[in-house]
């Protein structure tokens, strides 16, 4: 067992967990933050993406024990009273159907837009598609997801 202390969505949290506990398990089972989804558990689908110290990672492929002191943000932490522009854009553009992939899509997309803006690079629809390589959606066919991200990028 390891005692871990981290900040999740701005709040200090701690827990005693077996060393093999994945971050996705710690979030969902210990903290009951079930917005982070587990689609594949094999690092392929991206439904489990959260931000660790500001960077998107797959929480199903990260040990909670390795993250003592980390700052974690999950889908539950992105809205602040009102929906984040990325959430609103997915809503407005029909960027989801069943919604299973959506938390990971949103976490990946927020970072994508922020990174391109910081670098002064143009986020073309081709670039969006390439950036989404690690996020799989079985419903939408991606068109409306790309549209949502373009829409949010114009507003963020």
């Amino acid at each position, binding site marked *: 067992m390891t005692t871990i202390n981290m900040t999740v969505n701005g709040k200090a949290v701690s827990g005693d967990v077996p*060393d093999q506990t994945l971050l996705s398990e710690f979030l969902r089972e210990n903290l009951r933050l079930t917005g982070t989804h587990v689609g594949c558990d094999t690092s392929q689908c991206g439904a489990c993406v959260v931000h660790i110290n500001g960077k998107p990672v797959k929480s199903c492929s990260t040990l909670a024990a390795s993250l003592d002191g980390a700052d974690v943000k999950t889908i539950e932490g992105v809205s602040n009273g009102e929906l984040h522009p990325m959430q609103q854009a997915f809503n407005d553009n029909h960027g989801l159907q069943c919604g299973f992939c959506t938390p990971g899509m949103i976490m990946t997309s927020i970072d994508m837009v922020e990174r391109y803006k910081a670098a002064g690079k143009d986020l073309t629809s081709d670039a969006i598609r390439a950036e989404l390589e690690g996020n799989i959606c079985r419903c939408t066919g991606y068109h409306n997801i790309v549209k949502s991200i373009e829409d949010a990028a114009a507003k963020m």
Partner: protein
Amino acid sequence: MYPVKYHKATSIADAVAALSAGDDATILAGGQTLLATMKQHLADPSDLVDIRSIDGMAGVSAAGNVLTIGAATTHADVAGNADVQKLCPALAELASHIGDPAVRNMGTIGGSIANNDPAADYPAAMLALNATIVTNTREVAADDFFDGLFGTALDDGEIITAVKVTAPSKAAYAKFAQQASLFALVGVFVADGAGGVRVAVTGAGEDGVFRQSGMEAALASGWSEAALDGVAASEDGLMSDLHGSADYRAHLIGVMAKRAVAAA
């Protein structure tokens, strides 16, 4: 996953001690390969020794035209590093196309090289750039490091601490990605540098990454796509699987080599 004991190593000595104390202790870096292997019960280490917090393990430094890249440097940090972009842009470009953004934020160069997946990208760069693999006990030339499928010259408990790359005068990597896994179906790294003209191929060989000597000779006598016209890659020793037959991979080696030469 089976139960495992996690250690965060604070120094090389601490890591070495934890690795020899455990029954079957294994180094953990980004975990992007190892944790998946453990979930499938293909690996069942007693202990994981996390080397990422050891001072000096992550980060890039440049001295003259030599880059030293710490083993725990993530793919994203190699891709975004100004010294790598300046001295060896082909390596930054390669790192920027490994897997997806989330994998690049966790996966490390040391983990990729130690794992020596036959379809991984970095091994081809290391061979073509005549890189030196630095461990806690010695320095090994890339030519002597990679040893068959998932095999390397590393001894039990030996820790890669860095890789050293001398800036080439020309280099480029062309990858034909397998669309589902994002790994190379065939990747070819060409370089004209400290080790002469080199062509290294990943994704194709039954024994993992290899140098294509016919193409090296052709490019040494004239660096152009046309120089490769007469050099057919043989399908002997190439992999055949559901993603592509050996003759298809042989064909792709020619195509990717030309694209890399044109881009260099």
